[in-house]
């Protein structure tokens, strides 16, 4: 908007910002204005993080907890994609199905995924089933909505051309509808991975006996702020890795189809 700045300036300013942020945090922690127990310095969090990597806390090492979380996430996310994408595509293709499912979907949309926790615990227990259902509740809607949009907004000329050439409808679905919805589906998957990961964390805070969320709850119960912060860092790292890999997949797929701008 106002003056453009050079790349060098922006890198310098960026580092300045980070140093300012970490410096303020460190300064506040060592100043004694706030109890050290509640605001450890960044170095102490780093120490705790590395310790947790090879010492067990709340039943497993940090990596063990991360793996447990990721496993649940993977099941819930894949389930949401496998059910949600075909449902969305079919809703985009068959008008009647759209008209039947949409009102139910709209009614359920306002139930926060986390509000399913009590039923999830009741139906599937607190081991792996319950959390998977919560992740599913978080990740399912974007899968459906984006597949639906993808199918709904296919260039009608493509479908008309296929129809005119006498292509049977299962082939139209497989060879026209699905391929042209792929970009929309992929961006839906990214949203749903983010929401699913966040729901998982919530589920693990409330009902779980392993996973990063559980580690954080235990840290909180033991008033170990460093453990809680290490958990936050771990969650952020896994979330970031998930998002970057999906972003990469998106780029690869779009490039293959010559759609990249």
């Amino acid at each position, binding site marked *: 908007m106002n003056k453009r*700045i050079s790349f060098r*300036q922006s890198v310098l300013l960026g580092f300045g910002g980070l140093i300012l942020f970490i410096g303020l945090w460190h300064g506040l922690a060592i100043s004694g204005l706030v109890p050290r127990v509640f605001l450890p310095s960044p170095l102490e969090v780093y120490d705790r993080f590395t310790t947790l990597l090879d010492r067990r806390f709340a039943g497993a090492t940090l990596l063990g907890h991360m793996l447990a979380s990721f496993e649940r996430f993977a099941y819930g996310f894949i389930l949401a994609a496998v059910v949600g994408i075909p449902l969305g595509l079919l809703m985009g293709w068959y008008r009647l199905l759209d008209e039947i499912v949409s*009102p*139910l979907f709209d009614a*359920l949309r306002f139930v926060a995924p986390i509000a399913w*926790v009590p039923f999830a615990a009741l139906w599937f227990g607190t081991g792996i089933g319950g959390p998977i259902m919560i992740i599913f509740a978080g990740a399912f809607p974007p899968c459906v909505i984006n597949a639906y949009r993808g199918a709904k907004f296919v260039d009608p000329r493509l479908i008309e051309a296929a129809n005119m050439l006498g292509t049977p409808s299962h082939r139209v679905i497989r060879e026209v509808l699905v391929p042209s919805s792929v970009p929309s589906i992929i961006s839906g998957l990214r949203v749903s991975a983010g929401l699913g990961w966040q729901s998982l964390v*919530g589920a693990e805070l409330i009902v779980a006996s392993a996973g990063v969320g559980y580690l954080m709850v235990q840290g909180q119960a033991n008033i170990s702020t460093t453990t809680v912060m290490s958990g936050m860092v771990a969650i952020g790292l896994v*979330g970031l890795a998930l998002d970057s890999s999906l972003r990469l997949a998106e780029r690869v797929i779009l490039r293959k189809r010559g759609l990249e701008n």
Partner: protein
Amino acid sequence: MSRRVAIGFVTILIVGLIWLMVTSVFGVIPSGRFPSPAETWSALIHVSGRGYGGGDLLLHAYNSLRLVVMGFVFAIITGVPLGLLMGWSRRAEALINPVFLIIRPIPPLAWIPLAILWLGLGDAAKILVIWFAAFVPSVINTFAGVRNIDRPVIEAAYMLGMPRMRFVTEVLVPGASPMMFTGLRLSLQASWTTLVAAELVGAFYGLGRVLNVAQQDLYPGMILVGMGAVAILGWATTRALGMAEARVMSWNTAALAAKG
């Protein structure tokens, strides 16, 4: 459209009938797993009359709504100006963006244990996490909104020597508001999710507290009532935000046209 409404109505009716059939009439689903309509109704009477989990339904709903509104408003007050600043000044963007990049991947729900450590189980911890959940989308979308303003509009304002204050109120804010409202809608959703999670983790009042106690008591009727109440409040606040958006936007176009 009327076909749509009719089919939707029939669908909801059929689902309701199926619900009645599988729970009360044939008993396919035991009432310990999912409540029948009658059990849900009696749970609703229970919580609105005698109260449940420390208060009646209105008290719980009022507490949840109050916390969401406070956290959300606080997030707007802090997030929108920061987003405007970052959109306006490339320097501010360069300075602040990296800090955002490292904090953003941490989902708002992950702040709950820290907020409880810092502020306990009372209102303050919840307002903090809701603020955090709503703050990030407000900033990012306001920022994107400013960057989406047509360059000629800004250049024209410059060329005409518009004073800075008027530039902010008459170009920057109205130009950014469509995306800003998108951000606010996302913020509102995030606020509800976060509040319910925070109340499930620990609270004295609120709809999440109702859900939590009902889960411990194995009381499916009450769970369903709690979920319904959360959904209704979520819908109502989204609706209210949509109305506010319609008002602000119409005012904007009218004001701009009048100045024309």
